[in-house]
């Protein structure tokens, strides 16, 4: 058994030894090779090869549409049933431009892509705030609308298709021409269907750009959005803008698929682009591995092959022979069955499942083999912490004054003052429902305060969005660690860097030299951070399989990656065993030494009293005690709210609603 995987291990190992540039180079070469092999049967141009060429072409079209959809539905978690509609728009716009507009292909293609992107952006502006079913429904309705328009719009030939002899004196679109050389579609025997070359070249380009995009910080930001909008914005991502951009790119790629279709068949019938088609694209994504980088491409190839080849006809025949000649499933039904089956058996899709499997089998070897050249000298803290230690004492990093927040009738945070200096830890304690987390959320921007001011390094951040605040130098962890469980620890840390929120999509896609250097730097810094929190050996372990304590450490590492001035830790010790708590304490004191200011929301009194310089105790949203740990913990009123002695402070309680 294991010997079989040794091979895989070696390959994986080698693969990750290769330098990024060469890795991407190899990827391109591999793609080109595959494409060439795919074309060979048709080089002769014999009529018998036409079905094959059409198959290849359709696969290419589905591949680009599917990888595009993956950005939104796989990474950002917005399930769209509208990709088929974008495909149709692309096909018709391109067809119209090249027949009616008589534009050369080199011009028609980019214009079409832009049109599709614009449509996508417009849709996004209206819908990106929606989540879950609502978003899906809207895309579904849009798909139905587009289909209706295509069936009825006379200018586009309506149901007679575009073009049709009746209106346009021809049933075929003009052949694509680039620089005077014209490309033949795979329709008539006797001639090599040269348009396939054009299609596959564009496919390779699209795939390379898509891959760069999804492996970059930009791609990470989409994954973050998929995890939760809140997490993403705390990582400095402007969620709305990101969703809009993503939908634009998705639509453009969908449109590219449509362009391929027009190039291949030179005639468009609205019936080809119904909702069923949209769903097959989604199926391709899920079957291949929604959220994996290359999975959707694989899924697309499989789905098209299933639909076009006679395999499913074979299945149908088998049913009719052995099950029932009347009640049986043919292609569409079997597709539906596969869809459900895939959800049950391959929840992560073909590629996702395989890679999980491989990762499990080869993790140990990987961590030894593929750890990149780690910085031998321990990276000096200040190189990734923004605070400059020597001038630290002089100023206040975070100053909360009179912060107040109501929920309905409930006063969650009541005129709270709080101050954090550089290189200091401010503990926040208090019984359940005292408003500790609410306070943390006010500071990090998750809630807007009703009143009061919050100054971060002198700048008022009260009421700003979390991503704005994050960029100003505030990072936080969450009560339950929010990690990308299917990504490695290293990837998780990388997601923490400011690039996630700031790298532009086109830079990510084109990936200039500088970007390679930046990636290397990120890798270096991420590794250093992992070492700092003691996770170096787990660098290539999937975050999902980390022990709880380590997961928390990882989240702290990710928070540090954004080079914060202030770090908010929300119950970091919860669920940790005593030794883990000790380690946590050590880490916090180290960070303090680096000049980092921290708010430590915690129940674990031992931890508080060991590390906190100042402690504030909240009850019913109000500050009831403030001072050094020992002062606060021996304060009568504090004891009262914890132990419930008779003379606890008058707490406003007859408010409606519950705080559960």
């Amino acid at each position: 058994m294991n010997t079989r995987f040794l091979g895989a291990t070696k390959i994986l190992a080698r693969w990750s030894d290769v330098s990024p540039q060469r890795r991407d180079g190899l990827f391109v070469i591999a793609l080109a090779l595959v494409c060439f092999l795919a074309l060979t049967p048709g080089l002769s141009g014999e009529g018998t090869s036409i079905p094959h060429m059409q198959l290849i072409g359709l696969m290419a079209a589905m591949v680009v549409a599917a990888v595009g959809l993956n950005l939104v539905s796989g990474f950002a978690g917005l399930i769209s049933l509208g990709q088929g509609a974008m495909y149709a728009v692309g096909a018709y716009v391109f067809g119209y431009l090249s027949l009616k507009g008589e534009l050369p292909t080199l011009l028609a293609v980019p214009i079409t892509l832009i049109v599709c992107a614009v449509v996508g952006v417009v849709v996004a502006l209206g819908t990106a705030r929606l989540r879950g079913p609502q978003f899906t429904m809207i895309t579904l309705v849009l798909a139905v609308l587009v289909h209706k328009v295509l069936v009825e719009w006379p200018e586009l030939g309506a149901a007679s298709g575009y073009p049709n002899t009746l209106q346009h004196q021809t049933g075929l679109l003009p052949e694509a021409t680039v620089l005077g050389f014209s490309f033949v579609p795979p329709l008539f025997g006797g001639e090599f269907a040269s348009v396939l070359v054009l299609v596959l070249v564009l496919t390779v380009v699209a795939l390379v750009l898509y891959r760069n995009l999804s492996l970059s910080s930009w791609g990470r930001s989409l994954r973050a959005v998929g995890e939760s909008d809140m997490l993403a914005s705390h990582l400095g991502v402007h969620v709305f803008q990101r969703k809009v951009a993503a939908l634009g790119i998705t639509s453009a790629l969908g449109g590219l698929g449509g362009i391929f279709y027009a190039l291949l068949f030179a005639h468009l019938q609205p019936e080809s682009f119904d909702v069923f088609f949209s769903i097959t694209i989604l199926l391709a994504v899920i079957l291949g591995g929604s959220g994996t980088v290359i999975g959707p491409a694989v899924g697309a190839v499989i789905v098209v092959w299933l639909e076009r080849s006679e395999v499913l006809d074979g299945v149908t025949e088998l049913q009719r022979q052995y099950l029932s000649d009347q009640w049986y499933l043919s292609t569409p039904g079997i597709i539906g069955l596969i869809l459900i089956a895939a959800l049950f058996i391959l929840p992560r899709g073909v590629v996702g499942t395989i890679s999980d499997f491989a990762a499990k089998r080869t993790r140990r070897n990987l961590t030894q083999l593929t750890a990149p050249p780690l910085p031998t000298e321990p990276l000096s803290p200040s190189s990734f912490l923004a605070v400059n230690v020597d001038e630290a004492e002089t100023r206040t990093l975070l100053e909360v004054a009179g912060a107040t927040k109501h929920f309905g009738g409930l006063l969650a945070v009541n005129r709270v003052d709080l101050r954090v200096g550089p290189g200091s830890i401010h503990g926040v304690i208090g019984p359940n429902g005292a408003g500790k987390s609410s306070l943390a959320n006010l500071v990090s921007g998750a809630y807007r305060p009703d009143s009061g001011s919050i100054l971060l390094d002198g700048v008022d951040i009260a009421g700003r969005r979390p991503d704005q605040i994050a960029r100003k130098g505030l990072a936080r962890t969450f009560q339950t660690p929010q990690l990308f469980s299917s990504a490695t620890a290293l990837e998780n840390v990388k997601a923490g860097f400011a690039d996630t929120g700031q790298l532009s999509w086109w830079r990510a896609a084109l990936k200039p030299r500088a970007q390679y250097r930046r990636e290397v730097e990120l890798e270096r810094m991420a590794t250093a951070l992992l070492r700092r929190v003691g996770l170096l050996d787990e660098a290539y372990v999937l975050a999902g399989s980390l022990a709880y304590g380590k997961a928390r450490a990882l989240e702290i590492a990710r928070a540090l990656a954004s080079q914060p001035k202030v770090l908010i830790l929300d119950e970091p010790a919860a669920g940790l065993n005593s030794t883990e708590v000790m380690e946590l304490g050590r880490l916090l004191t180290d960070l303090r030494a680096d000049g980092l200011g921290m708010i430590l929301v915690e129940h674990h009194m031992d931890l508080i009293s060991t590390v906190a310089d100042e402690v504030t105790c909240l009850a019913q949203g109000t500050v009831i005690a403030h001072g050094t740990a020992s002062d606060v913990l021996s304060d009568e009123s504090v004891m009262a709210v914890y132990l419930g002695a008779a003379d606890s402070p008058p707490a406003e309680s007859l408010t409606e609603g519950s705080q559960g």
Partner: protein
Amino acid sequence: MSLIVEDVSSGYGRATVIESINVELAPGRISAVIGSNGAGKSTLARTVCGLLTCRSGSIILDGKPVQKLSAAQRARAGIVMVPEGRRLFAKLTVAENIRMGSYAAAGRGKASTQHVETLLDAFPIIRDRWSQRAGHLSGGEQQMVALTRAVASAPKYLLLDEPSLGLSPKLTQEVFRLIQLIADETNAGIFLIEQMADDALGLAQHANVLEQGLITISGPADELRTSPDVRAAYLGKIH
């Protein structure tokens, strides 16, 4: 006849919050589980009533192991919990909320209705709110309705998770009076899971102190009341 929790471990996701907990409860008795929050009190409660699955160990209700049953099944079997924060159905009326409780009463309905009557007589305020939406009640009233709802389920054993949460001391006393009444009326055993140690210890006969997911102290309530260790459990040992 007793509810036995036999070295139970449980937690969320990959986190183990409580480990090898052993507690026992006899009918008609009140046993307090105290400890600062984050110590794992709610986790214990949710594990016993079935909202969380036991990682290991067993829960034995009157001789029958129930750790495999779902929360709903356990409720019908007689393990009833009043969750943290009451969790009334805000859009349902007080009456409907209490009727909801009675669905779990299964065969034991008769007795429970009488008990409910007694509670309502003792705390007429609930009757006054009878047909109002539970969402419009104050915290204290909600807690009382929640307790009544639990009694309507004819519990053999009752788990109360932080009944004093968010209540003023005065109201807390009220609620605890109600709990006492329930203990006397229905011969149910009560796990009183509380942060307010002094109040809880005043009510309970027996108590356990939960610290970092472990039971560190266990004994008669009045002994624990005076013990310094209890204070340490809350505010740390370092003074």
